[in-house]
Each structure stands twice: as structure tokens, then as C-alpha cells.
């Protein structure tokens, strides 16, 4: 079996709620465990063992939470937009359920990124909120997440709501490049990005390693949460399906 046909089969299998429901339990537990372990390691390392930063003292340590949250917020929106495109093109049920499951979680993560950013900004910039390109873009991202939820609730017909939300997510993704490149468009208070793919990070490696561990931990943990939410969606949506009933009967026994 070639790689192509393997990928095709994996794609079709993941697209089936039944197969996903059966297979995702192990993934969920694995991602939760790995995520929590990495967050513990990264946070204890970052909060307890890394020397204070020369200019910011100890207040920079919140960045071990802020940076992963901000990065996750963008990644989640892009993932939702990709799922939206998949749903619009192939009408794949799982893609739509993924959007419904991930949108509220993405909103919470974005809110966490904003809150930690404000807490960090107060001692570092001297004020919690500045009209800087990246803070504004993150706030906009929060509103985009909110818009997805609002639109879903406004349309009574579930399938039409799912299509409309998918289209809105795809349209809203134009905002992501602005988040990414806003730093180059305006030179404002926010420091230029320290970690870029393909370039040497301008952040000292003492700080980079715990940050990387934490970021990976948050990604795993949130992936686990999304899978859990997705499983709840599947149970809701497929409540009348035969396979789910027999699975539930097996659980009860």
C-alpha cells in the first residue's frame, strides 16, 4: 500500500464519526497526559529555574503562558478556516463538527492570550492596553470567534448554519495575515517577533527551551480538549445512530 492510498484511507476514516469516535479515545488520553506533563515541566522550569530577564525582571515569566496562548489562538482560527473550506467543498460532517467544537475553545484561548498580554503589559509597557497592531489583531480575533458563534445561533437550520459559519471562517481568515504582518506594517511598542521559522531566534536559549516545552504542552492539551469536545458533538449529533447505541449499551454492561 503506497503512502498516497494510506493518506486517502486515513482521510476517509477520520471523516467518519463512527471511526473517529472509536479511535479518538486513546488519542485524547494520550494528548491530555503528554500536554499536562509538558506544561508541568515547562512551567516549573520557566517559573522556578530560569534567571530573571535583564530588563523585565521576573514579570516576563507570564510569557511562558502568553506566547503559547497567542500562538494557539491563531492556529486554532486557521484550523477552523481550513475545516470550513473542507466542509464547503466536500460537505464532510466531521469538519463541521470540528468547527462547532473548536470555536468556543478558540475563543477562550484568545481571551487568555489577551488577558495575559494585558497583565504583562502593565509593568512592562507601563500601561495594560496599547493600540498596538498585535493587541488589536488579537482582540479582532476574539471578535471573529464571537461572530462565528453568533452566526451559528442566529440560523435555525443546522446544516445551513454550518455552511454559513464555514464560509464566514474562510472569509475571516484574511485577518490572520494582518496579525502576522502587522508588526512590519507599523513600528509600534510591541517588540518584533523573536521566533521565526528559518531564522535564528533572537531570544536567549535559556528562555527558548522552557518556552518551547510549554508551547508544545499547551498545543497537546488543547488538542485533547478539542477532541473531547468533538466526541461530545458526535454523541449529540449521532444520538440515533445504531453504532452509538450499541456502544452505549456495551458501556452500561
Amino acid at each position: 500500500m503506497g503512502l498516497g492510498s494510506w493518506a486517502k484511507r486515513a482521510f476517509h476514516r477520520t471523516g467518519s464519526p463512527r471511526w473517529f469516535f472509536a479511535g479518538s479515545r486513546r488519542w485524547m488520553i494520550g494528548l491530555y497526559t503528554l500536554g499536562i506533563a509538558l506544561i508541568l515541566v515547562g512551567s516549573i522550569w520557566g517559573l522556578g529555574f530560569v534567571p530573571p530577564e535583564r530588563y523585565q525582571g521576573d514579570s516576563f515569566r507570564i510569557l511562558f503562558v502568553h506566547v503559547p496562548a497567542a500562538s494557539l489562538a491563531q492556529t486554532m482560527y486557521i484550523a477552523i478556516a481550513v475545516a470550513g473550506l473542507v466542509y464547503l467543498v466536500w460537505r464532510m460532517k466531521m469538519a463541521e463538527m470540528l468547527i462547532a467544537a473548536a470555536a468556543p475553545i478558540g475563543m477562550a484561548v484568545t481571551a487568555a492570550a489577551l488577558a495575559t498580554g494585558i497583565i504583562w503589559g502593565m509593568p512592562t509597557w507601563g500601561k495594560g492596553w496599547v493600540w498596538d497592531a498585535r493587541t488589536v489583531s488579537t482582540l479582532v480575533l476574539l471578535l471573529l470567534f464571537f461572530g462565528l458563534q453568533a452566526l451559528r445561533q442566529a440560523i435555525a437550520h443546522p446544516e445551513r448554519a454550518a455552511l454559513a459559519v464555514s464560509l464566514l471562517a474562510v472569509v475571516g481568515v484574511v485577518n490572520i495575515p494582518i496579525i502576522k504582518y502587522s508588526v512590519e506594517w507599523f513600528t509600534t511598542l510591541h517588540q518584533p517577533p523573536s521566533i521565526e521559522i528559518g531564522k535564528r531566534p533572537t531570544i536567549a536559549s535559556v528562555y527558548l527551551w522552557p518556552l518551547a516545552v510549554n508551547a508544545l504542552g499547551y498545543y497537546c492539551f488543547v488538542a485533547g480538549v478539542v477532541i473531547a469536545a468533538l466526541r461530545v458533538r458526535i454523541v449529540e449529533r449521532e444520538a440515533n445512530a445504531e453504532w452509538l447505541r450499541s456502544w452505549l449499551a456495551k458501556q452500561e454492561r
Partner: protein
Amino acid sequence: MSVFFAQLRRDLLIAIRDRSEAANPIAFFLLAVLLLGLGLGRDAGTLGPGAIWVLALFANVLAAEGLFRRDHEDGTLEQMLVRARPLFPAVLGKLAAHWLLAGLPLAALSPLAVFFLHGSMAGATPLCGTLLLGTPILAALSAIGAALTVGTGRGGMLLAILVMPLYVPVLVFGVGAAKAADGAAFAQLMLAAMLVAALTTAPFAVGKALSISQEY
């Protein structure tokens, strides 16, 4: 092309025969300028082009609500979706008519708004120019939101929530381009680029959204 002009002509004719509705965005814009001027008093002179841009943006969102509502109610929209394939020229025609009625007048009135708010008249020309470039983008973006919400019976607020986050880059570059500062030329070019991008891609999204709203 004939579909484009037919749609444009039809929408303009309807607007001419029902003048009061077509005049609403203009009246709203002037009213908002009045309220801003009264609310700020003497401080109004210190406002930059940003204030007028924001008002134009609000007027645009409010105007967009009615873009498809009447067509949806009397079934014209369904006819358009059935007959006009591809949808692109028909949607573009609707957008063009909408802009001529609710975008162009705002840009044309912006020097008057600057005058009312005691702004510097030297800045009125670039402001008017950037509004001419920017309002079609706003119209195209708000049309996507209007198409998504057309059958829901919930216009106003929901439409604003959906569409206004997408306005951010237009506002940023529009205000940047209207200011006589470094980077204004770059912002003008970016605005023009966004205009081209919006006019070539947004009608597809609007058409898709309309099909979704009428499908079931």
C-alpha cells in the same frame, strides 16, 4: 456584462423610485457628524480623518442590512440565484449599485463633514480620495455579511458583529492614507490593492453565501 448592467440598472431604478430609502445612509452620516460635533464641542477640530472614516464605516454597515432584504422578501433573490449563472456579474452589479447609492455619497460629503467638524480643509482632499478607494471595499465586505444573515430575520447587530472585524485593515490603511505622513503613499497603494482584491474575490463569497441562505 449585460447581466452586470441589467442588475445595476434595476437596482438604481428601484432606488430612484423609492428615494427615501436610498437617502437614509446619507442622512445617517450627516446626523452622526452632527452628534460627534455636538458631543465634542471645541475639541472636534483636533479629530483626524479617523473620526470621519469611522462614521462612514458605521453608515456602511447600516446600509448593508437592506442590500438583499427586499429581494429576499419578494423572491427576486431566488430568481437571481436560479437564473444568473455564474453569479459573479449579477452580484457585482448589485454591489456597484449599492456603492453608488451608499458609498459614493459618503465620500462626496466627507469634505462637508470635515468643514462641520472644523478640521483642516487641506486634509479634506486626501480624505475624500481614500474614502473613494475604501468605501467599495467596505461595501463588498458588508455584502458578505448581509448575504450570510439575509434569511435569519436578525439583521443589524449581528451583521455589524460579523463584518466589522473585517473592516479593520481597511480602516487602518484608509486612515493611514488620509494622513499627510510618512507611509501615506504605501497605505494608498495597499488600499488600492485591497480594492482590487475585494472586487475580484468578494462577489464569489457573496454568491456562495446567498446560495447557502436560499438552499433549504
